[in-house]
């Protein structure tokens, strides 16, 4: 099993009042960076990088970075810079990027070069994930939402081609044109390219796409039961593709904080919900903008995973929590209005009536009860972690800690205890449960089903087509 550490690197400025439980809510894209304190930013970037290096010391297999833009809940606006630094300041851990936001890159060849450089400097430790980004990312880098999914796929195909196909060659796709693809660098990992992991929360398209490419799929902090169902969907698509998905194809990220006493763990764990936390996740006091989450053509509302049906998740993404609102056939009715003599046009109220997002989120205690947050001493967290592993059977797990309002000391206490008393036991559980990681068994060369034939990786097919 692969065991990693993750934090969103929140911008923790007590003066800003951005601490949800005690200060003002964060409304997505509503804050001015005029309040940004770069001296504090310098401290925080260095703190988070130091913590990442410490993760390697205590025995984590992987450190994970993510990227968001124009928001205080994640300082990783340029995740590849952080990854470049740890490529040199660490020596063993996998550097997991979950992930680069492909559609917002107007020059993905530059991204291919950047990542190949990181892979070489780290001597093959890059695990590169791809995401589509939220409405916030589309707006802040002004990438057309209707082409988000097309650009995601084409940018991916281009990056893989740049890594695997000897140049020079031309690339003339739907969204990207290059007259000379021949980067003077190749990734260190060449079988066939750096390991990939695809993170996600609600999109069925993304799961199906990952399964078709045989890339591991990582669910991000979703509730257990719908997560299990979503993994089942991955396995279904895998079977359609003629292979059996194993634990190496499945990853799960969730919040786990370990501390010296039960009381300290409980109180410190509460800080997950008190900082400028990710507005999409339960317990944060952030406010997602329904308008940003419903940019035209960004996501198909009717193509959601079971995780997207959870009331909070739906509401935080600006979707109605009543399926009826979006599923009834409306084309005929709308068309019928466009006839001569029709009375004046009519419009809906400002937004569909639904409870406030925050009201739909589970409380801290509810999240502890449903295992989306686990806190305790090493002794008490282990059985809970085992429950999650048995239920979801992921080959990669990422413990999300040191977030929200947690201080450097809070984080370091937890990391130390992870190293001494949790990680060895978790790895034993992984062995016992047969949770193979993508580094134990290559997910791109899976066990084929009877009658299934080994086809070239989908990426290679895509490359050959160009």
């Amino acid at each position: 099993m692969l065991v990693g550490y993750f934090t969103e690197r929140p911008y923790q400025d007590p003066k800003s009042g951005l601490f949800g439980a005690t200060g003002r809510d964060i409304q997505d894209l509503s804050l001015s960076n005029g309040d940004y304190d770069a001296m504090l930013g310098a401290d925080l970037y260095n703190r988070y990088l130091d913590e990442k290096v410490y993760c390697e010391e205590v025995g984590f297999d992987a450190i994970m970075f993510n990227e968001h833009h124009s928001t205080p809940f994640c300082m990783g606006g340029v995740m590849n810079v952080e990854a470049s630094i740890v490529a040199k300041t660490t020596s063993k851990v996998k550097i997991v990027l979950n992930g680069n936001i492909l559609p917002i890159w107007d020059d993905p060849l530059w991204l291919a070069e950047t990542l190949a450089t990181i892979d070489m400097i780290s001597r093959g430790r890059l695990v590169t994930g791809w995401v589509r980004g939220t409405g916030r990312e589309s707006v802040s880098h002004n990438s057309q939402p209707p082409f988000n999914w097309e650009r995601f796929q084409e940018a991916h195909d281009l990056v893989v081609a740049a890594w695997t196909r000897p140049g020079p060659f031309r690339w003339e796709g739907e969204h990207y044109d290059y007259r000379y693809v021949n980067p003077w660098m190749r990734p260190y990992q060449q079988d066939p390219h750096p390991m990939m992991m695809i993170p996600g929360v609600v999109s069925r398209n993304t799961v199906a796409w990952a399964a078709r490419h045989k890339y591991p799929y990582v669910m991000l902090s979703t509730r257990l039961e719908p997560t299990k169902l979503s993994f089942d969907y991955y396995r279904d698509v895998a079977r359609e593709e003629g292979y059996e998905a194993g634990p190496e194809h499945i990853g799960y990220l969730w919040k786990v904080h370990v501390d010296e006493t039960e009381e300290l763990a409980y109180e410190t764990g509460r800080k997950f919900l008190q900082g400028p936390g990710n507005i999409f996740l339960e317990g944060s006091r952030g406010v997602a903008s329904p308008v940003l989450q419903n940019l035209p053509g960004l996501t198909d509302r009717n193509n959601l995973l079971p995780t997207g049906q959870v009331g909070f998740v739906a509401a935080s993404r600006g979707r109605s929590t009543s399926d009826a609102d979006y599923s009834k056939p409306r084309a005929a009715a709308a068309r019928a209005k466009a006839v001569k003599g029709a009375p004046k046009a009519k419009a809906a109220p400002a937004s569909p009536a639904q409870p406030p997002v925050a009201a739909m989120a589970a409380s801290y205690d509810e999240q502890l009860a449903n295992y989306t947050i686990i806190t305790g001493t090493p002794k008490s967290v282990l059985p809970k972690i085992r429950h999650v592993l048995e239920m979801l059977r992921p080959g990669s797990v990422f413990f999300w800690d040191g977030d929200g309002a947690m201080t450097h000391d809070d984080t370091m206490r937890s990391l130390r205890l992870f190293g001494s008393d949790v990680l060895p036991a978790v790895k034993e559980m992984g062995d016992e449960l047969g949770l193979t990681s993508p580094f134990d068994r290559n997910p791109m060369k899976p066990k084929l089903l009877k009658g299934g034939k080994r086809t070239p990786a989908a990426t290679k097919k895509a490359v050959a087509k160009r």
Partner: protein
Amino acid sequence: MLEAGSGPPLLVLHHSTGALGWRPLHEKLAESHRVILPDMPGYSRSTLPEWARDPRDLAILMIQLLRKQGLSNVTLVGLGFGGFIAAEMATMNSDLIGRLVLVGAPGIKPPEGDILDQMLIDHADYMRQGFRDEKTFEKFFGDLDDSDVRSLWEFNRVMTARVCWKPYMFNRRLPHLLPGVDVPTLLVWGEKDRVVPISIGREYARLLPNAKLEVIKAAGHLVDYEEPDRLARLIQSHAR
């Protein structure tokens, strides 16, 4: 495509929010003209031209529509975004267009102010800002809970985002072509337009060699909703 009336042809291009049916403006115009109200491709649940990337693509398709319908010497009326398309059409083939009317049309980067961004705003708020005051909005849209109109708008703005996401609602090349358009042009702006700044209207008037600007006092962006009779009279007088 809706059509009524008889007389010289008059084509109305709708706002980015869609045609939303036959309304009093069209009824008035039909008293003197053969009024044709098409759904632009990708709007009002018509087939999406997936290849289209630019408002100019829509303009080409609308020119082709004029030809297909055997129309010439047309009075071309563009409302809001439809006016942007109409201006693009005039730069391409002014022979088909006898008279041009642009009502609150974007298409040029405003010398002063910004075009209201429908991508970062709720539909009702966007529509509300199209009116000079809240009461008029309520009169047309506020009293009924109609998710069909909202759903239609969601459909329509996907097309708008496909061709107009950036630059938003203007074309940097258009001002360079407008001086070559000699079609007699009527520009109509609501004095209180909060969606498309009136500075754009003045810019059209400056760049087009044969244009005049009529400012309707106390009207907002949606002059066609607020002052249909007055707008119809101005158009009829211009089209005569």
